[in-house]
């Protein structure tokens, strides 16, 4: 196993103290016999999570920025659209099916799934292909745990993900001109999907995932560009050959299947050597830093790619 010993911030740095304390209270409640990780409290829903491995040393991006600067074209092109236009999106009830080349396909109810999986908090760096980055405390569970339950067959080599299509609740799915092809689809090689860093997130900052961040369940692959992190997933399919992915279909020259963060392989329209830090504060906050190979997760994931030509397989 690769080294997991990132410098870890104290919990107090990650989460507002109030949320952190209420989480403690929840743990006590859970010990008293509650079977679910999901507890509804006046307004917000708090998740019960434990700190997981793979922390980051950076300061987390403020919650306000994490929830108000989003690329989620189902709700619109502007970064503010998802927060502004997703209030009517119904993330419950929700089912997530795991199917394809597996011995035990299953359709999960989202809340049963959340109750069945031990949730971890993971502070991950998030690097967008547009050359900006955040640091986000996600709550979720490794995708590998879910796939293991389904028992992939020997013939399964890739994992295909599919998002929801609901034009009535997602204004970005209604107009033609600026539209991507719906549903949004993504994919990983099976070994990438089984990697312990690969997370299915159901919350952030200790609270249930906001609609604009991909409720109720989304993928987080921290060594890849953000667009690989498909949101509002309805279907996970184990397949034999490389599945199509939305941005790759839209513009194959600019967005590859692998989409590993790589400061040496530029986007055709801009350099990927450095990134703007979201929420650094105004013009003169010094909000730019060098981009790291595999977004700083090289120690964990470089082995997945061996001698592969990362310039060609961008």
């Amino acid at each position, binding site marked *: 196993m690769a080294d997991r010993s990132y410098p870890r911030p104290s919990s107090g740095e990650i989460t507002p103290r109030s949320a952190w304390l209420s989480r403690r209270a929840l743990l006590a409640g859970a010990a008293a016999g509650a079977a679910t990780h999901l507890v509804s409290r006046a307004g917000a829903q708090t998740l019960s999570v434990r700190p997981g491995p793979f922390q980051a040393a950076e300061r987390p*991006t403020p919650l306000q*920025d994490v929830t*108000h*600067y989003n690329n989620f*074209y189902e709700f619109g*092109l502007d*970064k*503010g659209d998802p927060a502004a236009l997703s209030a009517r999106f119904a993330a419950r009830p929700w089912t997530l099916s795991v199917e394809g080349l597996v011995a035990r396909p299953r359709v999960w109810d989202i809340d049963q799934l959340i109750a069945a999986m031990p949730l971890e908090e993971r502070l991950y760096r998030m690097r967008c292909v*547009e050359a*900006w980055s955040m640091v986000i405390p996600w709550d979720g569970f490794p995708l590998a745990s879910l796939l293991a339950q389904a028992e992939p067959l020997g013939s399964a080599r890739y994992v295909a993900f599919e998002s929801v299509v609901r034009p009535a609740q997602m204004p970005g799915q209604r107009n033609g*001109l*600026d*539209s*991507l092809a719906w549903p949004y689809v993504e994919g990983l090689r099976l070994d990438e999907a089984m990697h312990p860093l690969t997370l299915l997130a159901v919350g952030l900052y200790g609270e249930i995932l906001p609609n604009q961040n991909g409720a109720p369940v989304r993928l987080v692959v921290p060594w890849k560009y953000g667009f690989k992190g498909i949101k509002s997933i309805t279907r996970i399919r184990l397949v034999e050959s490389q599945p199509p992915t939305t941005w790759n279909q*839209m513009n194959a020259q600019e967005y590859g299947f692998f989409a590993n963060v790589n400061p040496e392989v*530029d986007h*055709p*329209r*801009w*350099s990927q*050597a*450095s990134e*703007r830090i*979201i*929420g650094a*504060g*105004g*013009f*003169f*906050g010094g*909000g*730019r830093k060098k981009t790291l190979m595999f977004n700083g997760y090289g120690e964990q994931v470089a082995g997945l790619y061996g001698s592969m030509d990362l310039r060609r397989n961008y």
Partner: protein
Amino acid sequence: MPYLSGTPRNRLLVPWRGERAALALLGLLPAILYFWYGAHDALGPDPVNVFERWLGLWAVRFLLAGLLVTPLRVLTGLNLIRYRRMLGLLAFCYVCLHVGVYVGLDQQGNIGVLVQDLTRRPFLMIGFAAFMLMVPLAITSTDGAMRRLGRRWGRLHRLVYGVALLVAVHFLMAFKTYNVTSVTYAGLLMAMVVWRCQAAWRRWRRRAA
């Protein structure tokens, strides 16, 4: 009505000397306002990107406004030609700010990246070419330069149609998908070029006939 066409000479005269200065100040307001917001962390989580795009958008708007002056006069009789040079200068001013923010605030003066930008990224090469084409137009926009260049001034300033085409392409490329904003502005810019070519073609045929 003083705004309707007159002789070429008095068409360019401005009745109130402060009028063009007022237009310039008004035109710079969007930049001043956003600079103030950005310096005070009020442009959201990604302020440099927002400001950069804002300046580019206003450059497009002023370029388009300048190009609309003639079609507007022909179609409606409203003659705003006395403001056209100021509209062009405002467009150039916004382009300078747009480039300046990209180089200074966004790339923070990273020469390596800028060299790559101008050697391998068509998106930025096209944008930069438009900027370069605008330089001689801005330099020759004084009354003195107009007098000195005489008939050649008009010919030189036809370069603006090349600028319009380059800007339209750069603007379309600035978005990840085609969308209402980018297609509308780029379409209008290209329409101005087509309109102008058509007018020139008709004049040429009349002369040939």
